[in-house]
């Protein structure tokens, strides 16, 4: 039995082989869903035009605008104005590309527009057992459904547009087991920051991760998406969670999901996907959720993270010269001293948003904590919903009024200050607590300094003006 036992990843991989790997060529993998956005696709469409090629399956392709789009409020005509001429040109080119090649597009200002990794699950397009790609490294998000989903470069975007296939070598597998139960005030974001702090920013290179264990099972789909989203921050191109009833309930009734008897048949199939008993992984890591407290990063990559009550590590205590140099460089950029605590550190900006933490449950959690409180004097807080649908839902629930009453900015949907391409950015030297996924130098604006954390930790910083353990403000009775 054990000899034939397969992992979730292997099952999905095997289902999509168009042509197996040979000594001379990689495997050719069929792609079920291709998501495209304005920033990483123009050169791919140019290639298609140059060679006179069509998009093979526009009905398996969906475009949205998210990276360079403004999130500033609509004008009196209900239009979200793009002030950046180069971004405007890129958006116009993208619109033309989608029109010319017959690809459905969620354009800026329309009802379904949003971050590419928010809209797929929202519409029910993201389903277990699928292969999903996008010219964006956070495509790993969709792995939360038991899909094999990963980011690709622009050349590969061209390959998928033209052929609906990709050339891929089979990656290795890593089991990431998270047992135990999270304490109140500790979230999915803290789990993934804890995992990346453990394996390092390159520890998952060459692997597909499968997250498993009691703590993962207990998470909502949105929490699982937060975790899979940041697989790439540990170097893993993809992360997956086995589908279960939580998954099926989330998908049921969504527009692109199978309906009625078709849905029942799909669920029966999806139940065969989880990793078989005894299936082998190439590597395994574990994390105990019982012991986890809110996490925060102190450095300039997502692997530089620690418990929020910890102390900034000392370069002199690092085992190798390279690590000393890297940590010293990071602390210089961050303006932090070795061995200092982060609790109590003054901050300037709080960003709640991004494909990591901009879904309705993130906004509900943030709103619940900020309700009746005020953003501290001198702090700017942006709340950027992941999609127009999330924004509309939040407004139906009155969450926008809670954020606005607290003094936060309520914005249109997009990537916003996570990638700082659209004008939403930090000023040089500013400190931000962000719910996004990357704290690289300049990521949120040239010279800006990022502490990555959960939405709860972000709100706690917003209302106190300093880095604060959210458990001090958390009221479990309201949970």
């Amino acid at each position, binding site marked *: 039995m054990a000899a034939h036992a397969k992992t979730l990843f292997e099952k999905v991989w095997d289902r999509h082989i168009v042509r197996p790997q040979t000594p001379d*060529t990689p495997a050719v993998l069929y792609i079920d*869903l291709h998501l495209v956005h304005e920033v990483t696709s123009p050169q791919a469409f140019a290639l298609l035009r140059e060679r006179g090629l069509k998009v093979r399956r526009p009905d398996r392709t969906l475009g949205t605008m998210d990276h360079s789009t403004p999130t500033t409020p609509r004008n009196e005509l209900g239009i979200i104005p793009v002030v950046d001429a180069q971004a405007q040109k890129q958006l116009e080119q993208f619109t033309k590309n989608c029109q010319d090649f017959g690809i459905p597009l969620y354009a800026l200002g329309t009802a379904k527009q949003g971050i590419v990794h928010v809209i797929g699950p929202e519409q029910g*397009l993201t389903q277990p057992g699928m292969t999903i790609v996008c010219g964006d490294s956070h495509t790993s998000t969709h792995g939360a459904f038991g899909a094999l989903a990963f*980011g690709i470069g622009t*050349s590969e975007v061209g390959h998928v547009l033209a052929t609906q296939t990709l050339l891929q070598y089979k990656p290795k597998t890593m089991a990431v087991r998270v047992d135990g139960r999270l304490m109140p005030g500790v979230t999915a974001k803290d789990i993934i920051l804890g995992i990346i702090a453990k394996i390092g*920013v*390159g520890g998952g290179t060459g692997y597909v991760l499968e997250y498993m264990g009691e703590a993962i099972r207990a998470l909502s789909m949105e929490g699982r998406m937060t975790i899979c989203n940041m697989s*790439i921050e540990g170097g893993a191109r993809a992360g997956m969670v086995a589908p279960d009833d939580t998954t099926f309930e989330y998908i049921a009734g969504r527009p692109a999901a199978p309906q009625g008897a078709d849905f029942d048949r799909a669920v029966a199939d999806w139940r065969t996907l989880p990793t078989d008993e005894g299936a082998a992984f190439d590597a395994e890591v574990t994390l105990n959720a019982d012991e986890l407290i809110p996490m925060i990063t102190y450095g300039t990559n997502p692997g530089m993270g620690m418990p929020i009550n910890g102390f900034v590590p000392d370069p002199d205590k690092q085992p190798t010269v390279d690590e000393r*140099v890297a940590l010293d460089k990071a602390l210089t950029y961050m303006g932090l001293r070795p061995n200092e605590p982060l609790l109590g550190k003054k901050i300037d900006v709080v960003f709640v948003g991004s494909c990591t933490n901009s879904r309705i449950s993130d906004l509900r959690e943030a709103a619940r904590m900020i309700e009746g409180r005020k953003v501290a004097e001198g702090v700017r807080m942006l709340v950027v919903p992941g999609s127009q649908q999330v924004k509309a839902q939040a407004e139906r629930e009155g969450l926008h009024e809670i954020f606005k009453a607290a003094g936060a900015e309520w914005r249109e949907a997009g990537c916003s200050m996570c990638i700082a*391409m659209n004008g939403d950015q930090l000023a040089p030297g500013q400190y931000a607590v962000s719910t996004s996924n990357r704290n690289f130098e300049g990521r949120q604006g040239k010279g800006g300094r990022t502490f990555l954390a959960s939405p709860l930790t972000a709100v706690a910083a917003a209302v106190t003006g300093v880095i604060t353990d959210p458990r001090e403000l958390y009221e479990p009775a309201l949970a």
Partner: protein
Amino acid sequence: MEPIRKFTGRLAPLPINDIDTDQIIPARYLKTTDKLGLGQACFNDWRWNEDGTPKADFILNQPQYQGAEVLVAGNNFGCGSSREHAPWALLGMGFRAVVSTYFADIFRGNALKNGLLPIVVDEETKQQLISLAQEAPESTVTVDLEAQTLTLPDGRSVTFPIDPFSRYCLLNGVDQLGFLLGLDADVSAYEAANPQRVNTHIVA
């Protein structure tokens, strides 16, 4: 694409671990719809002052490294985003190869599709190359893709791995899309045997 077989060039050292794609090319330069013209913005925030003058403390700005074609970097080069603008920018700055102990998966794939060779060496060789670049910047190394070797000035050669398909495409100057387009019948057969999972036109 021009075929790549063998070239000789000088080294430039950048001994920093985990150099991410936001350092290679900051996101604000991704609003272009072209591949060309990104060389000036390569390592932009490390390389240029606000007024456009070179930052004196950035090693690649030193005169002895101008025109170097082989970048020797710390571990895990190219981590972060999927932006193919990263290899486009490195090529635009004049590099033809990057040497590291390992590369981020997406970056490595992107580099190979654009004729920028990601050369994986062991830690000891990397350190030797960095020392060589620092102490004798005028010296050159020879990269031979056919033989998969990197030859140092003292004649010593190290071999590097590259998958046979990428190697074939680079040696012959052909891109990978042509191969996939040739499999049209296989793809059609797959599509006929596997029902369509989702239809994006339904949710348009």
